[in-house]
């Protein structure tokens, strides 16, 4: 039992310490800013995983919710002078409510039909953002979104402070998803994904479970989007567009669907890789496509799933010696 605890402490502690030391270790603002966008995106990818990994439905409106969260924070802070710390919870509540209303219709379908329905929703969200110029700035987007305001002595105007804020929200997100999946509610999610028929037969309201999962997923997308808007200072319609959903889906599949580290691993690796290969920007999909295929064929559990196997093998050998 002791070695299991040690293993868990290592699996949690080492990445966390590395993440905390990262800005000091690299001492490179460009890399820190890449990490900030990766963390913020990863928060939304965790939301996608709640839906796809734990209740088994693929929502292609996910970037739409990311965009709505971002625009809500952007509009409230830049046009109406709200504090970021008030705008962010409002963005979460608003996006959750919207997710709930969309879910009422979308969740009458399942699987492929649900994906297609939410794809249409995703397209509509972008159209609304682009056409509602007076509110959203249309295709030009919003600029001049202020950075998160100070909390007491903590100010979030420097890059490193934003990095730690993004990290704190990421850790919070991972905790929420972990505690959810290790709870009676999370077991309900998995039961519904496994067999909706059996879940209903043992008294689980499958419709409500999907609805809850969709709302949580939308809320996490909004959290990521809200942070994105405040950190980057601007937001445009492409942030909430369908290709962004597919990017997130690729991060998730490469990292590992239904795995706790999966969204983070996939997002960091692929966003990092895309930055490193910026010279070949037109060919990113040609590079990502084969990677995705290789991962799906050889590591169906994603890289995090494969990493877990390796990690357990390594630590077990050490523990045995």
């Amino acid at each position, binding site marked *: 039992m002791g070695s299991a605890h040690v293993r868990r402490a290592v699996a949690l502690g080492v990445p966390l310490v590395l993440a905390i030391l990262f800005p000091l270790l690299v001492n490179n603002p460009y890399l820190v800013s890449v990490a900030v966008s990766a963390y913020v995106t990863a928060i939304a990818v965790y939301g996608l995983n709640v839906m796809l990994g734990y209740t088994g439905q693929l929502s292609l409106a996910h970037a739409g919710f990311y965009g709505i969260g971002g625009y809500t924070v952007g509009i409230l802070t830049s046009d109406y002078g709200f504090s970021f710390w008030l705008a962010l919870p409002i963005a979460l509540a608003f996006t959750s409510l919207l997710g709930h209303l969309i879910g009422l219709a979308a969740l009458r379908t399942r699987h492929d039909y649900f994906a297609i329905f939410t794809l249409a929703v995703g397209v509509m969200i972008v159209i609304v953002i682009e056409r509602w110029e007076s509110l959203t700035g249309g295709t030009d987007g919003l600029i001049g979104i202020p950075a998160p305001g100070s909390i007491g002595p903590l100010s979030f105007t420097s890059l490193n402070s934003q990095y730690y804020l993004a990290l704190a929200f990421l850790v919070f997100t991972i905790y929420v998803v972990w505690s959810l999946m290790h709870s009676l509610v999370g*077991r309900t999610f998995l039961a519904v994904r496994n067999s909706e028929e059996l879940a*209903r037969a043992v008294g689980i309201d499958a419709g409500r479970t999907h609805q809850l999962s969709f709302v949580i997923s939308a809320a996490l997308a909004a959290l990521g989007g809200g942070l994105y808007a405040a950190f980057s200072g601007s937001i445009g319609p492409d942030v909430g567009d369908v290709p962004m959903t597919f990017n997130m889906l690729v991060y998730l599949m490469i990292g590992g669907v239904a795995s706790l580290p999966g969204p983070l691993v996939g997002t960091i690796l692929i966003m990092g890789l895309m930055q490193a290969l910026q010279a070949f920007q037109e060919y990113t999909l040609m590079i990502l496509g084969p990677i995705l295929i290789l991962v799906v064929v050889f590591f169906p559990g994603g890289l995090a799933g494969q990493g877990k196997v390796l990690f357990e093998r390594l630590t077990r050998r050490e523990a045995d010696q």
Partner: protein
Amino acid sequence: MSGAATLRVEQLGMSFGGLKAVDQVDLEVPAGKITAIIGPNGAGKTTFFNVVAGFYAPTAGRVLIDDEDVSGLPPHKVARLGVARTFQTTQLFPAASVLDNVIVGRRLHTRSNVFDAVLRSRRHRREEAESRENALEALEFTGARDLADVLVANISQEARKRVAVALALATEPRVLLLDEPAAGINPHETEGLTALIRSVAVERGVTVCLVEHKMRMVMDLADHVAVLNYGKKIAEGPPAKIRSDPKVIDAYLGADHDA
């Protein structure tokens, strides 16, 4: 909510387009007894279960649990009123442990929500512990306690049948519907399962209604047998009487056999 309940259907009908899968069936499944529903393939047995458990809303007639009309309620509500069921092909979650599978059956007795989960509230901790205990107790009863921590993917077909029964029992049903509980297991294992089903009725005081093709098991186990053919009930009575009923023999062997 505990204690056996009587399941009664009145003039029950379920049509799919022109096909009457269940047609004007009247049946009483007495409380605390074991009732078997038999009939040739396609006789409407599984459809009958699906209607009783709320998976289909009946197109005619009523389903009553202790005189409470449950017809047309969705399955999770029927389950909350005390009707549990198992499926022909077990649908357990192979990637989770046996215990984790069975704990899901306790969900209808718990109230913890997302906030309890994230805040690790006292209610959540209490309900989690109670669910675990109750699930282990259900596993103990079905003789699968030793397998609690094993992944379902790694247990035998027979063990899965027992775990499926434990999952159904974890909901604390008043009526248990078993759809071919002994399909795909050998005669020796079937005997063990027969004993388990009998103890569900006798020791737990749960009303049992099963669909089964293994005649020996049915004759051995059931207090009462109903026979369906083409959606209609063609006979009903104690096993000994059913065995010699000419209408039943006709249904199984074809009406021409004595011509």
